[in-house]
């Protein structure tokens, strides 16, 4: 084997070892907070509230609204709920805390980008939240008879791929907001703005089909529908293959855009950073 190849293998092995350690560490950490995670999960109930409002509206309208009947509303909002649950991120809040309290200093001394700590916190949290979500989805499909949550394996696989990218949009977007804490004391307020926009534009409130065309055209140019609306459409199998491809590419583009923005902001911010008392 050539020496370079050996170094490369060593690097890979090293990365694998680091990842395993980080995973074990943060997974253990997250299991401690299982009760809180369960409550956070239950509190993200907006898509389910909207599900019942829209079903109520459809039945008042004689059963259907723009090709949506009770079963397809149920399927859409259940899928939207799952998408929202799997893309939850709180990294902006955590970065703000670490920067204001000076906790970032000890992180900077470690031989690894502090970003990875946050990635693993969120990643392992999903493994604690996952079983709860699964129980709710299975229960949900029984509660509303005839829910058309797709049984197609392909749609589930596409969804699993796209939901990871969707999570990365939300995560990296919050990372950008988090780096603003280098300049502003209360940068989490920006996160609240994003949260409000997301509540009404991501798709947990209504399928985009019901938005006025002019507004929908604008919303399509924002990252929000790629976090909840499109993943939910893919999971319910209501997108054509060519649309699915387009959605995946645009989602990937948003991930890249926010990734690049984050690294630029981080580079400038870290120069600005002086720990408390420095």
């Amino acid at each position, binding site marked *: 084997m050539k020496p370079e190849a050996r170094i490369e293998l060593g690097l890979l092995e090293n990365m694998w070892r680091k990842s395993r350690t980080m995973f074990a560490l943060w997974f253990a950490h997250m299991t401690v907070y299982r*009760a*809180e995670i369960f409550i*956070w999960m*239950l*509190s*993200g109930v907006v898509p389910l509230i909207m599900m019942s409002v829209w079903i109520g509206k459809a039945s008042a309208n004689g059963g259907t609204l723009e090709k949506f009947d009770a079963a397809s509303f149920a399927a859409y909002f259940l899928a939207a709920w799952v998408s929202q649950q799997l893309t939850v991120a709180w990294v902006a809040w955590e970065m703000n805390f670490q920067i204001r309290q000076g906790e970032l200093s000890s992180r900077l001394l470690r031989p690894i980008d502090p970003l990875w700590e946050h990635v693993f916190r969120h990643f392992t949290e999903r493994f604690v939240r996952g079983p709860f979500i699964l129980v709710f989805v299975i229960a949900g499909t029984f509660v509303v008879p005839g829910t058309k949550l797709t049984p197609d394996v392909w749609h589930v696989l596409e969804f699993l791929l796209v939901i990871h990218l969707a999570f990365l949009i939300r995560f990296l977007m919050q990372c950008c907001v988090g780096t603003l804490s280098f300049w502003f004391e209360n940068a989490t*307020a920006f996160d609240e703005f994003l949260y409000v*926009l997301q509540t009404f534009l991501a798709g947990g409130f209504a399928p985009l089909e019901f*938005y006025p065309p002019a507004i929908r055209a604008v919303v399509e140019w924002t990252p929000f529908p790629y976090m909840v609306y499109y993943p939910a459409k893919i999971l319910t199998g209501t997108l054509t293959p060519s649309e699915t491809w387009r959605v995946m590419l645009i989602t990937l583009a948003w991930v890249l855009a926010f990734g690049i923005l984050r690294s630029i902001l981080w580079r400038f911010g870290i120069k600005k950073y002086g720990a408390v008392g420095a």
Partner: protein
Amino acid sequence: MSRHWQLIKIFYGASIAVQLEYRVNFVVNLIGSLLTAIGSLFGLSILIAGGSSLGGWNQTEAIVVVGVFTLMEGFMGVFLYPNLNKIGEGVRTGSMDFTLLKPLDAQFLISSRDVNILRVADLLIGVGLIVYASLKLSSVQSPGILIAVLLILAGFASIYSIWFMLCTTAFWWVGVENITELFWGFFRAGQFPVTAFPGWGRILFTFVIPVAFITTVPAEALIGRGKLETAIGALGVAVLLLIVSRLFWKFALKNYTSASS
């Protein structure tokens, strides 16, 4: 009683003085409150597109509900959140001891220590929406207004009691600090008239989580659609919740053994 008023004045004065130091926060929070209100109205306009109704409520009538909801949101943010959510911390760190030792009712002290003026905008926006919609509705009459004010106060009492009970669970579940988020999540159903929900939703949001009594019933009274039964129901729920939460608090205190003892 006058002693209590005086203490509230002192507590709030001190709390406000601290917050006045961070003036940028005001602007930022004001934008946040406005965005939320615009979002709610936008959401409503999607649900009531093309002049359709939402559970029998037209757009202007439904705005009254959004207004009451925003007002309640403001009440939670201004008066409840900065006080009651510290119960958990007090139990965990043992600083609850000092509260309990004061020669004053501990529930009063815990509930009135702080006020968050940053969220006052929500109160104002809520009132603004109610007034705006009322001016456009001819069915709004003065007896209805009086009853609505009474019912809104009852709504404050109900929310306070539920929130207080949730925070009191910290005496047993020290780790679960986000339990009020649970109520907060479900309370969002209150931005719509309860008739917008199908049958099972109506039952859930009336009897299990009494959101309907807190937002829909006052709005109904205001727009002149109030029924005597529901108004009495809302008042009854408020009184009942106040009593139950007081008893629950007494029960929790009996079980309090301070931190690490």
